[in-house]
């Protein structure tokens, strides 16, 4: 009974701010809605006994991605006159989203899931062993992807400065 109540609270904590993320006109408000949604999702992972994923969600999503998103929102201030609310798209977007949800929900309810309810146990040791044995190649590829993303992000955001010997010479002149 208490478990059900906790699940309902976590699901509400995930879904109600998600509506805010989607509908809010102010992107900073949407970013803070995303904070609560990600927090609720971390709670759901913890509820399912996925301790490692819950902590990774807290550190990577809330500590990294969300801070990055909020920084970018605040650095790219869009004046009101541009109008970043697309009401004319609400109809096709809501139709398509509802259709997708209908198909998914139909599938969820029609399949007879043979769910096992064995008690949850700590998974970090097993995840570590699996990553180092069965998933070693995906693990290495992912580290390469992270390196490529880091280099790409640094290249894209660097200051534009015409390169050339003339510029370099000027730089050394100015330096002292």
């Amino acid at each position, binding site marked *: 009974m208490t478990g059900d109540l906790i699940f309902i609270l976590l699901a509400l904590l995930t879904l109600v701010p998600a509506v805010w993320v989607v509908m809010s006109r102010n992107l900073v408000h949407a970013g803070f809605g995303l904070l609560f949604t990600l927090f609720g999702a971390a709670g759901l992972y913890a509820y399912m006994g996925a301790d490692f994923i819950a902590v990774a969600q807290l550190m990577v999503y809330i500590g990294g991605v969300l801070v990055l998103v909020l920084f970018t929102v605040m650095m790219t201030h869009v004046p009101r006159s541009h109008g970043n609310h697309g009401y004319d798209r609400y109809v096709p977007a809501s139709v398509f989203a509802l259709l997708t949800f209908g198909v998914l929900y139909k599938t969820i309810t029609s399949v007879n899931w043979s769910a096992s309810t064995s008690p949850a146990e700590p998974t970090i040791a097993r995840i570590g062993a699996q990553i180092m044995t069965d998933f070693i190649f995906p693990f290495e590829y992912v580290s390469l992807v992270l390196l490529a*993303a880091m280099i790409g992000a640094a290249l894209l955001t660097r200051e534009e400065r015409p390169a050339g010997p003339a510029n370099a010479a000027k730089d050394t002149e100015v330096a002292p």
Partner: protein
Amino acid sequence: MNVGLPHFLTVGAILFALGLFAVMSRRNAIGILMGVELMLNASNINFVAFSRYVEHAVDGQIMAAFVIVLAAAEAAVALAIVLAMYRNFGTANADVVQSLKR
């Protein structure tokens, strides 16, 4: 009510539909990115739920960890592109901008 697999899958489906709605209705590129994050979280909830309830294995959780890593890489590159867009065009509106250079 006995909380089981279908409940988590339903939460994931609602989250995915909301993310899809954001991707289709938002004009600001950062808003679109937030929708993508919602959809990735929905997929993660499904991965972890299947790993918990269907089979007594941690494969689903490892997939969820990979999804989190790829989402972080995607966010870094996408936000760098948004910043480059904003520097060159003065806007983050995905309708206006069609290239990265003038």
